[in-house]
C-alpha cells in the first residue's frame, strides 16, 4: 500500500442514511448496490464470497487484511461468488499459501464483483451495529456523494424479496463429493440413506457433509413441491441455507408444511426459518444480523456451548405470547416445538425440534466452512432420525 495507493482508482461507499466512506476500487469496476452487513470471521473470505446466502448483500469484513492466502480451487461454497459487493480495509495483492491460485482482486474482477478497500471498516461496522444494516452503494464511476446516497436509498432492500430463485439450481442433480482429505475423524458408521436436499442456495460443504454421512444425495430446485420431492422416495429431506427473507418464499413454506410428519426433516439457516414458518411460528429481521465464526450457542439439551459459524439476518420466534424455552415447548398446529439451541450473545433462537414429528433445524451452520466444526454432530442426528423413520 502507500506506494500503490496514490495511483489507485478512487471509489466510494454510500449508505442509505447518508453516511459516506471514501476508499479505492477493488475488483471489477462499476457500481453496485445491496444491503451492507459485516462479518467478523478472521478467515474464510473465499467461503463467504461464494456463499449464496449473501445474495443481495454487500459484505464488510471486520478483519483488516483480506486476501492474504489468496483464492484456491477447493474452498468454494458454490460455483461463483453471489454477493453484491465486497468491502475491506486492505486487500492483499501478494497472497501467500501453498494452495493459492489467484489474488482476491483478480478473482473479484473475473467474476464481476465490485468492491471497495481502504476504508475505516471499524467505523462502518460500528455504524451498522448502532444504526442497523441498510442499503448501500459502492461506486468506482460516480464519486458525487449526494448522487450516490440517493442511489443507495433507491436500491431495493432484501425484505419481502425472493432472492432464492436467483441462486437455486435449475434442475435436479446428484452430489457425490465428500469432504475427502479435509474430513473430520468421526468414527461412526456411514448410512446410505436417500436424502433429498432443497436448494435454497445450498453451500457445497453441506452437501459434502451429507455425503460424509454416507447419504445418497439428490438436490432439487427450491420450487420443488412436496409431492415431487416425495416422488423421489427419500428417507429424509434436507432444507438448505439461502439468502434473504423467508417470508418471500411462500412456495417453499408450503412444500415444507406438506412434508412435515411425512419424512424426517433437517433444516439449516433459511431452511430453519422456512420450517419455522411452516410450523406456524414467526420470523423477524435482526438489527444487524449474525455474521461470523465465533458465535456461542448453548445446546439446551446438554447445556454445553458450541462455537458456531453464523450468517443470518432473520430469526425465528414464537407467536406473540409464546416465549421460547427448552422446558416449555411452543404449541403449534403441528404439535409441540422445543427450543434446542439459543444464542448466548442475544438469546436468539438458534435451533429447534418438533417433539411430535421427525423434524429439527438450526439457524447456524453446522457445516461450518468457514468456521468451527463444533456443531458437526447435527448431521449424525439426521442419521438417527431417518433410522427411526425406517424402523
Amino acid at each position, binding site marked *: 500500500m502507500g*506506494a500503490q495507493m496514490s495511483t489507485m482508482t478512487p471509489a466510494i461507499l454510500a449508505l442509505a442514511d447518508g453516511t459516506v466512506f471514501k476508499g479505492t476500487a477493488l475488483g471489477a469496476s462499476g457500481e453496485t448496490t445491496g444491503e451492507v452487513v459485516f462479518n467478523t470471521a478472521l478467515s*474464510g473470505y473465499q467461503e463467504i464470497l461464494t456463499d449464496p446466502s449473501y445474495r443481495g448483500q454487500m459484505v464488510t469484513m471486520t478483519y483488516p487484511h483480506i486476501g492474504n492466502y489468496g483464492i484456491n480451487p477447493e*474452498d468454494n461454497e458454490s460455483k461463483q461468488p453471489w454477493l453484491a459487493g465486497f468491502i475491506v480495509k486492505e486487500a*492483499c495483492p501478494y497472497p501467500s499459501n501453498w494452495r493459492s491460485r489467484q489474488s482476491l482482486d483478480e478473482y473479484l474482477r473475473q467474476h464481476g464483483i465490485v468492491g471497495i478497500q481502504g476504508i475505516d471498516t*471499524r467505523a462502518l461496522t460500528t455504524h451498522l451495529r448502532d444504526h442497523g444494516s441498510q442499503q448501500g452503494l459502492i461506486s468506482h464511476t460516480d464519486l458525487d456523494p449526494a448522487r450516490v446516497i440517493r442511489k443507495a436509498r433507491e436500491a431495493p432492500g432484501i425484505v419481502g424479496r425472493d432472492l432464492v430463485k436467483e441462486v437455486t439450481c435449475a434442475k435436479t442433480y446428484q452430489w457425490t463429493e465428500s469432504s475427502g482429505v479435509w474430513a473430520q475423524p468421526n468414527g461412526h458408521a456411514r448410512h446410505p440413506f436417500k436424502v433429498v436436499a432443497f436448494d435454497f442456495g445450498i453451500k457445497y460443504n453441506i452437501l459434502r457433509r451429507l455425503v460424509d454421512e454416507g447419504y445418497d444425495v439428490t438436490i432439487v430446485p427450491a420450487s420443488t413441491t412436496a409431492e415431487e420431492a416425495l416422488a423421489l422416495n427419500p428417507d429424509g429431506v434436507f432444507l438448505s441455507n439461502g439468502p434473504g427473507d423467508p417470508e418471500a418464499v411462500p412456495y417453499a413454506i408450503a412444500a415444507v408444511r406438506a412434508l412435515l410428519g411425512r419424512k424426517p426433516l433437517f433444516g439449516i439457516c433459511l431452511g430453519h426459518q422456512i420450517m419455522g414458518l411452516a410450523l406456524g411460528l414467526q420470523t423477524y429481521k435482526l438489527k444487524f444480523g449474525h455474521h461470523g465464526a465465533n458465535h456461542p450457542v448453548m445446546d439446551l439439551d446438554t447445556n454445553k456451548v458450541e462455537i458456531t459459524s453464523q450468517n443470518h439476518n432473520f430469526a425465528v420466534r414464537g407467536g406473540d405470547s409464546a416465549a421460547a424455552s427448552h422446558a416449555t415447548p411452543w404449541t403449534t398446529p403441528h404439535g409441540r416445538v422445543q427450543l434446542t439451541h439459543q444464542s448466548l450473545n442475544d438469546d436468539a433462537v438458534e435451533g429447534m425440534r418438533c417433539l411430535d414429528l421427525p423434524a429439527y433445524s438450526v439457524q447456524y451452520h453446522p457445516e461450518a466452512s468457514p468456521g468451527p466444526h463444533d456443531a458437526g454432530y447435527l448431521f449424525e442426528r439426521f442419521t438417527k432420525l431417518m433410522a427411526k423413520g425406517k424402523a
Partner: protein
Amino acid sequence: MPKRTDIKTILLIGSGPIVIGQACEFDYSGTQACKALREEGYRIVLINSNPATIMTDPELADRTYIEPITTDIIEQIIQREQPDALLPTMGGQTALNAAIALTEQGILKKYGVQLIGASYEAIRKAENREEFKLAMARIGLRTPASAVARSREDALRAMDEIGFPAIIRPSFTLGGTGGNIAYNREEFESFTEWGLSASPAGEILIERSIIGWKEFELEVMRDTKDNVVIVCSIENFDPMGIHTGDSITVAPAQTLTDREYQVMRDASLRIMREIGVDTGGSNIQFGVNPADGDLVVIEMNPRVSRSSALASKATGFPIAKIAAKLAVGYTLDEIPNDITRVTKASFEPSIDYVVVKIPRFAFEKFPQADPTLTTQMKSVGEVMAIGRTFKESLQKAIRSLEVDRYGFDPHPSLEEGDPEETVAQIRERIRRPDAERLWHVADGLRMGISVEELHGLTRIDPWFLNQLKDLLSVEDQLAREKHPLAPERLREAKALGFSDRRLGELLQVSEAEIRKQRLKAGVTPTFKRVDTCGAEFQALTPYLYSTYETECESRPQATRKVMILGGGPNRIGQGIEFDYCCVHAALALRDMGYETIMVNCNPETVSTDYDTSDRLYFEPLTEEDVLSIVETERRAGELLGVVVQFGGQTPLKLALPLEKAGVPILGTSPEAIDRAEDRERFKALLEKLDLTQPASGLARSVKEATAIATAITYPVMVRPSYVLGGRAMEIIYDEKSLQAYIGKAIKASAKHPILIDKYLEDAIEIDVDALSDGTQVVIGGIMEHIEEAGVHSGDSACSLPPYSLSPTLVEEIRRQAVALARELHVIGLMNIQFAIRDGIVYVLEVNPRASRTVPFVSKAIGVPLAKLAMQVMMGRTLAQIGFTTERTPAHVSVKEAVFPFNKFPGTDVLLGPEMRSTGEVMGIADDFGSAFLKSQAGAGSPLPMSGRVFLSVKDKDKMATVALVRRVLELGFTVEATRGTAGYLAQHGVVVNVVNKVMEGRPHIVDHIKNGEIHLVINTVGDKASQLDSASLRRAALVQNVPYQTTLAGARATLMAIEAGLKRKLTVKPLQEYYANP
C-alpha cells in the same frame, strides 16, 4: 456449574525470579488469579520468592509467603495453612515443576491437598516428551520424528536414526533452556551433554528438525463441561528453528485459510481432551510445511504462558483470570466478558487490528555469548504494538523497542563501500538469525535482493517479506520527495506506521518540523478500542490503540486525570520493579479519586491489564506517541500531569520534551532530575552540601586518561560518557590495561569523552531509598550490599537493615540522604548509592525517582512506598499521609540477584560494574544468616550444609581467607584449594587438600566439580589473565549447579548462612505476620 464450595483455601505458587523464559507475564497471571479467586471468597495462600511483583503485595492474598519455592518450604506452608487445593498453572514452569515434585513425594496426598487447574497426569503427559508424543499418536496427530534419551549412549543411537540437523530439547525446562540445533556430530555431542544436564529429569528429546516450517500457536481454554474456545491464533514471522519467545509474532494468523485453521483448531480441541486439561488455558504450538500444508504438533503448555499473556493483551480476553475461575468450577458460559459486559466468556474473540510482538535482546551485556537465535530462548523482554494493518503495527513495535530505531534505519555499512560487497555482507547477516535480522532483511530488500531469495535465506513467509518490501519502496519514494508532503500523502505515510522521526530522516528535516507540518495539516491519529469482538458489541472498557483512520473512539472523559508512563520492554536494568511502581501509582491515584491513564507497550505486565487503570493506551513510549495521547486526553477534563518517575529511564527520557510541550510533570521537577544527572552540576551540588564523591575526571584522549588515572591513583573505574547502565564499564588496575581499554574497546574523543572515577576497592556499597514531600524526608530503607562497591548495585545481594555497619555510620548516611533530598527538592521517591571505605562515606549516585529496590524495600518494611510517593506527588504531605518516621523492622530481608548465565555458554559468571542479572529474590528471616540462606535457595542455588568446599583466591584476598577457612573447617566441611592458596594457608597453620588447576594436569578441579565432588566454590580473581585461566571452573560450577561465590564478602555471608542453617531449620512466616508484629 457454579463455583466449588468444597474448597476454601487455595495455595498459589508464583514463578520466582525473572529469568529468561519466565518474566513478568507470571506476575500478570498470578495477580489476576489472586484477584479472581478472592473475589469468589476463597482464602488465598501465596508463595513466591520474587518481591518485585504485584502478586506478593500483602493485600492480594490472605497469606503471602515470600519464601524460596522449594518442596520443603512449600510443605511447611501447607502444614501451617492447610490449603484444600493447589493451583499450579499460574506460575510458569516453576510452579508446574513444584507441583510435580509435591505430588511425587506424596506431600499433597499427605495433607489432603488437591491439584486444581491441571492434574498431575495432565502435566506429566504434556511435559514429558515421550508421553506427549504417544498421546498425539493416539489421537491421530503427528509430531516430528524423535527419540528420547537419558544418556549419551541413548543420544548417539538416536542420532543415527534421526539425522541432521537435529533439535535437542530437554524435558521440564523453561524457555527451551539447554535446547539447541545440531548440524554435525561434534555439535550433537556437546549439545546433548548440555541438554541432559539442563533437564531436571536428565532427559532430552532428540527431534527431527523441521527448521524453516511455518510456526503457529493457539491459545485454548477448556472448562469442566468440556466447552473449549480458542482465544487467539498467533503466526510467527520467524519460522521453526527460532524459539517462539525470540520470534517476532503476529496475531491473528495471517496466512492460513479457514480450512487449514480449522484443522488446527480441531487438533487443539483433541489435544486438550487427550492431555486432560479440563479447567484452564493452554498454549499449543504447531509447525506447518509451507510447501504442502503438512501439520505437526510441536508442544503444548498445560498452563498460562508468555503467549497467553500476549494473547490476553492482543484480544482483551483475560486468560489468567478466566483460567482461575474455571479452576474452581465455573464454566465459560457463566463468566461475563468484562469488555462488552453483555456477552459471555464462552466465545472466540474476533479482532479488527493486527498485533505484532517483537522480542528485546541483551546480547550487548554478554559479549562472549553466541547471538544466533535458536531453539533456546535468549531474549529478555518484548514489546507489543497494535495497529490496523501489519505495516502500521510492525513500525509501531519497532519504535516501542527503544533500541534507538524509529523505523527501518539502514545499516551504516550501506552508505559506504562497494554495493556488491555490501549485498554479500547482508546475505551473510541474514543467513544467521540474530536480534537484528528484521533490519538485515530490510537492508537486503533495499539493496535489491528479491523476496524469493530472501525467503530462501530466511524461510520467512513471502507475505511478511512483501509487506516489508512495500514499506521500503515507500521509504524510497519518500526519500525522493520534498518536505512538506501534501496532507494526503503524509496521512498515507502515517497510516503505514511511519514515525515523525523516520519521516524526518527520509525527508531530511527534523522530527519537530514533520510534527509541526503534520499538526498544521490536521493529520493526527485516531484511537480505536480493543473490544474482543470486532465492534459487534459496544466496548465499555477504554483499552485503546492509535491508528490513522476516520473515526476516533477515545472519548476522553471530563474528569481530573493523571497519566502514568510505563517502563516499556523488560531489559536488563529495567524490569518488573518499575512496572510494580507504575501499578502502585495507578492504584494510589484511583484511591484519591483521579482518573488514571496508563501508557505502556509491554504485554507481559500488570500495568497493561485493562483493569489496572481507568484507561489504557497500548502505545509506544516515544515523544510523538505520548504527545498524541496527551492532546487527545486534553480534549475533555483536566490533565493534571504526567508521572515519569516510576517507569525507569524510559519515561524519564521523555520528561524534558513533555515539559517543553507544556505538559506538567508531577513530582520532582525535570530541572532537579537534570541537576542530579548532569555530572558537572552534580559535582557542584555535592560541594555545596560538603559531601564527598570519589575523585574523578573526564578524558578526551589517551594522554588525558593516563594523566587523570595517575592523579587519582589506580584502580580506576572507566566508562564511555555516552552509554548508560554500566555498559562497557571496567575496573582498571594499571596503565597498560587502561591503554588497552581505550585503544581496543572505546575510542576517546572530544565528542565522546571517557569518564574515569577512582575505584574504591573493598568499599561497602549502600543503597538508600527515601521519600520526600519537598520539606520532610523519610528514609524508606537503608540496604547494605553484600558484594563490594564496583559490582553493579543491581547484581549485588543486599541486606535491609545493614548487617555490619556501626550506628554512627548509618546515622551519617541518613543525614546525607536527607540533605540531598532537601537540596534537590525531591517530591516523591529518590535513590542514593553510597560507598563506605575507612569510615568515609562517598556519594556515588543520586536518582531522584523510583529505583529498582522500591518493591524490595516496600516488602521489607511493610510500607507501600510507591503508593505513598504518588500521594505526595499529588500534593499531600508526608504528615498528611501518616508516614513521618523511618520503619526499622525487627526481621532481616536479603535480596539476591539472579543471572541468565546458564543460557549463554561461554559467558563468565564474574560480577562487575555492568549489570547482567535479570531478576531478584528475597529471603526474610529473623537473622541475617537465615535470610541469606533463604535468598540463595530462592535464587536456585541452595547452600550445602556439609561436604567439600573448593577455594582459590587472588593474592590480595589470601590474608583474609585464613580466618574464613578456619570457619569453614569448624563447620565440618573439608576444603580443597589450589596450590598457591593451599600453600599460603599452610604457612598460616591451616591445612587443606591441594587440587590441580586445569592447566596443572588431571584430575583437576573441573573434573572434581563435574563429578559432583565439590559442594561450594569460593573463587576470587584479579586481572583479566587470571580470570580467563579460571573461567572454566566457574562455568563448570554453574553448569553443575554448585553454589559459588566470586567475592570474599559473598563468601563470608555464605558462611554466616550455613552457620545459621546448621543451627536451626528454616521456618516460614507470611508477610502479614511480619507486619503485624514489627
